[in-house]
């Protein structure tokens, strides 16, 4: 696939000696939604800030849309929009003025029709003449999004766009982000809500302590690392797992009422039927059964803790 953003061997040492990024290599594909996950202090904001020009880069280089972000900063930055993590808004300005200001900064002439549509899409049109300090937190967040989109960027960074946003608004935002993607905008978002990444992302990257520890297609990540569990509610308690079933990765709940079989979806499908047949042979009966799949959250936790 075609890469629109390429991060090569990027490192960052903050003054004071803290190693915030350690040789990051990352390619973002054209038109995808990429979710960057990682615990607090992992380096997500640092990475985004370097790409956008807010933090000085250390070693390494970044190329956006074919332009080096340092040497060709004008062309690179025209392609990029940023919604920062902090709610930093000019509180004395009106919504309309600040969106116009953002458009101007990018070096593009005013396009009132586009800006109107943008504010309408973000349900801010009615508030266009309001001073930003009179808006709610969720509205301020949308003002930030409007500012980031005012110059029609091709790459959009969303640093925790849904932090402190209510459920309904989150849905709306997801909808909007998908809409942008459908219009060919490449999206890189960070989030602490794993369900958000699970819902939205095409690919997922996990960063921890300044190192990118994994980049995967979401679907294949869930397949590869996603463990499935089959839980059997036994008709009669077992005191221990019969020796003849030792070859299966089985465990018994402490009260002896549940037999749990953990398997990887892709290569062990056949074995389930085997297992069930063996249980029947042993006359172990069960009242009920259910399967569950580990969520991205479990995967994420096990990855971060494993390192």
């Amino acid at each position, binding site marked *: 696939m075609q890469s629109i953003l390429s991060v090569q061997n990027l490192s960052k040492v903050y003054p004071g000696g803290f190693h915030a990024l350690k040789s990051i290599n990352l390619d973002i594909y054209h038109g995808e939604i990429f979710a960057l996950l990682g615990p607090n202090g992992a380096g997500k904001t640092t990475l985004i800030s370097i790409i*956008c020009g807010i*933090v*000085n880069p250390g070693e390494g280089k970044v190329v956006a849309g074919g332009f080096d972000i340092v040497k060709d900063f004008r062309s690179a930055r025209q392609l990029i929009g940023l919604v920062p993590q902090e709610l930093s808004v*000019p509180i004395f300005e009106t919504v309309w*003025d600040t969106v116009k200001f953002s458009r*101007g*900064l*990018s*070096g*593009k002439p005013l396009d009132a029709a586009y800006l109107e549509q943008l504010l309408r899409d973000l349900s801010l049109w009615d508030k266009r003449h309001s001073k930003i300090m009179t808006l709610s937190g969720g509205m301020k967040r949308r003002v930030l999004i409007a500012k980031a989109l005012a110059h029609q960027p091709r790459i959009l960074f969303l640093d925790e766009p849904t932090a402190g946003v209510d459920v309904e608004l989150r849905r709306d935002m997801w909808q909007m982000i998908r809409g942008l993607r459908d219009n060919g905008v490449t999206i890189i978002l960070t989030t602490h809500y794993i369900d958000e990444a699970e819902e939205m992302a095409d690919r997922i990257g996990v960063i921890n302590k300044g190192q990118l520890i994994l980049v995967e297609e979401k679907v294949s990540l869930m397949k590869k690392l996603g463990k499935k569990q089959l839980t059997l509610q036994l008709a009669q308690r077992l005191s221990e797992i019969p020796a003849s079933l030792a070859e299966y990765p089985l465990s018994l709940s402490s009260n002896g009422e549940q037999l749990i079989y953990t398997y990887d979806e892709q290569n062990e499908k056949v074995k389930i039927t085997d297992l069930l047949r063996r249980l029947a042979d042993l006359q172990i009966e069960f009242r009920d059964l259910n399967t569950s799949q580990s969520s991205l959250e479990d995967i994420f936790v096990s990855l971060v803790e494993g390192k």
Partner: protein
Amino acid sequence: MNFYAIKAIYLFEMARTWRTLMQSIASPVLSTSLYFIVFGSAIGSRMAEIDGISYGAYIIPGLIMLTVLTESTSNASFGIYMPKFSGTIYEILSAPISAAEIVIGYVGAAASKSIVLGLIILITATFFVDFSIQHPFWMLAFLVLTSISFSLLGFIIGVWAQSFEQLQIVPLMIIAPLAFLGGSFYSIHMLPPLWQTITLFNPVVYLVSGFRWSFYGVSDVQVGISLGMIGIFILICLAIIAWMFKTGYKLKV
């Protein structure tokens, strides 16, 4: 050149001026009027002429400079400090604009405001004192150059400052005393010889002297030297600002 960006920053800063019209225009005009009443009319009428000029008229250029210097510094410093303080500076730093364009936007707006302010005070002065301007072109030139140079200084202070106290301390503790001691209210020839020499290290002396020359054709130091000093001052400020952006000093880590 990204002219749209320069215009956006310039208009943003000018809009701030309109929002705070009372504090940015009315209050300096009021305080200068008080100076005119006290020094120009009340005390001035009992003072001897200096260099053949009535005291009331003599202090006009100095009073304008006093306001232009302090206002340029505090305006320009506030203009860049605010986005740093509120965090909105991210947008300036991540926009496709060069350091030069940022500086033209912010410093241009602060300087414009000072120039307007200087002219307003000049007009105010006509209500209190009789005077004429011998070299209007040079008067304007000195006003513009001074506004630009001290707005550049203000920009540096705004980038440097980490708190509101630091932001105010330079205009208050350095610029205002220098302006007072820089010959706004007297000719430096009236000082004892030792102080005359010390005063020559005060950059404001050159500004006030040159500016007064443009009004009345008399000066404490040669006009050419005044212009040269302003030029050097602007160059030093530009060099510091260039260094700040190159290293990201207090702007980027």
